[in-house]
């Protein structure tokens, strides 16, 4: 058994060198890192025949910041703020994932007020992430207006969260052992106002995109991902649920106070882009329901159970914890050697694993379908690269 380490150059030159057959219609083209619909710096090397995609090789690393390495020299509280910069659209959920892992490992019990507030914020964050995704999907398929409508509604939600958190994107709100600050006195009232504002807007979203025949035809039967393929290629979150597997950590392994909320897990049927679209739109409605249920009875208590400048030490061992972000399962692995810094901190990023579904779902289809399918995966590139 041998191991051969190849490089991208070798891979590509096989088919694009000067010695290729003059009859061949196949050619390679770079899509990204600076392409309008790769949403950041994802680079796909496409092997095309006319407009058909024969191969799609993702090339990563353009925004790699070695968060895992940096974290090895930081205490657990400092690790948290780096996770804001991974999946910046679910920053609070990322914060929560690390905090949850640390709390479970160090045996810190948090009270139910903290858990409830975390849950509410996670769901709000999920909504705003899906709002942006919805707009971006429209923009990728050529409709620019939905993008601005999505951004506009996200702005309203961002304001609500900013009032409590003090930041709009890199929130750093959840810390091991509690929250950075208590909720703002206006918070409950403003969230209620937002729910009242956003429900009619969801119907408007349906008018603009969902019921539009062009969008449906662009997404239907495009990028079909069977349940088996989705599982084997590591998909989680709405991508897996779009394929019909009702796996949701919030339901199957409840954390926070999700077991107190009554909600449903939307799943798709055949796993095409249209299913993934619809699952996300439905998830926005379910998230609104969860927030609505939890909002009225936030239990009293402290917002921080552990003093901030005390050192958190984790007993030696390996710890793994996961939760459901807007894009799938975010796993946090901690290997500890009894210091207050992690010996090794690893994030299982949902986007990293979802990305690999792109090639099996798009092989042999058009470039235009690739855009739609990629949009329905809802990739956030910094999370892939970390």
């Amino acid at each position, binding site marked *: 058994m041998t191991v051969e380490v190849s490089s991208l150059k070798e891979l590509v030159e096989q088919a694009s060198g000067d010695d290729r057959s003059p009859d061949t219609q196949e050619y390679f083209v770079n899509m990204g890192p600076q392409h309008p619909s790769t949403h950041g710096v994802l680079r796909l090397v496409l092997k095309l025949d006319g407009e058909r995609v024969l191969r799609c090789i993702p090339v990563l*690393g353009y925004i790699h910041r070695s968060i895992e390495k940096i974290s090895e020299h930081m205490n657990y509280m400092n690790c948290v703020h780096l996770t804001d910069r991974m999946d910046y659209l679910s920053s609070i959920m990322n914060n929560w994932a690390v905090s949850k892992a640390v709390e479970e490992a160090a045996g810190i019990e948090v009270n139910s007020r903290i858990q409830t507030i975390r849950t509410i914020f996670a769901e709000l964050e999920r909504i705003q992430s899906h709002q942006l995704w919805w707009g971006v999907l429209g923009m990728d398929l050529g409709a620019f207006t939905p993008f601005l409508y999505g951004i506009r509604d996200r702005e309203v939600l961002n304001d609500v969260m900013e009032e409590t958190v003090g930041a709009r994107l890199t929130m750093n709100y959840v810390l091991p052992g509690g929250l950075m600050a208590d909720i703002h006195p206006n918070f409950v009232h403003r969230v209620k106002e937002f729910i009242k504002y956003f429900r009619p807007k969801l119907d408007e979203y349906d008018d603009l995109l969902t019921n539009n025949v062009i969008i449906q035809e662009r997404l239907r039967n495009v990028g079909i991902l069977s349940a088996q393929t989705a599982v*084997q290629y*590591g998909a989680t979150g709405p991508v897996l649920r779009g394929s019909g597997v009702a796996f949701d950590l919030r339901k199957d392994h409840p954390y926070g106070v999700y077991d107190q909320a009554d909600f449903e897990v939307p799943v798709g049927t055949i796993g095409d882009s249209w299913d993934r679209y619809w699952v996300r739109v439905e998830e926005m409605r379910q998230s609104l329901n969860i927030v609505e249920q939890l909002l009225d009875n936030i239990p009293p208590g402290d917002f921080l159970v552990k003093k901030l400048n005390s050192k958190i030490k984790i007993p030696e*061992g390996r*710890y*793994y914890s996961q939760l459901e972000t807007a894009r799938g*399962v975010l796993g946090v692995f901690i290997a500890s050697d009894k210091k207050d810094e992690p010996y090794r901190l690893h994030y299982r990023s949902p986007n*990293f*694993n979802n990305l690999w579904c792109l090639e099996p779902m798009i092989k042999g289809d058009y470039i235009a379908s690739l855009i739609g399918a990629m949009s329905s995966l809802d990739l956030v590139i910094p999370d892939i690269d970390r």
Partner: protein
Amino acid sequence: MEREALQAAVCELDSAVSPLDANADRAAVVVEASALPAIVRRLRDEPRFAFAQLLDHVAVDWIDRGQFELIYQLYSFKHKHFLSVSVFVPREDPRVPTLCRVHPVAEWQEREVYDLFGVLYDDHPDLRRLFLEDDWVGFPLRKDYQDDFMLDRPR
């Protein structure tokens, strides 16, 4: 199945499997490198385990012990349980058979580990750097990695 029961059941599979107790929150086993694909395949196919998804693949550089620990996180949708499978390989010659044929997603997870730790995966179809450039020297997540751009954090 409870955690202990699962751990015991997995250990009964093969003599190459032994329990690992350093894991705090889930069933964990140690597997000998050569037996890894076969074990993971059985874990996937046998209905009482049904570990359908490879959730995650992590490597840890235990530099004091001179070993890399390769950890595979498996999840079973059917029984809703997690399992962590560890493989210890020597730091000097880190080689382990690939899991690509069992779980396709391993191809990229293993590439990530190769990229950052330099673990070689036998029979891997496309072992390339994933994040770093193809001509990068060294494997940054190893504990003894040094380069000119690393900053010392003032403490």
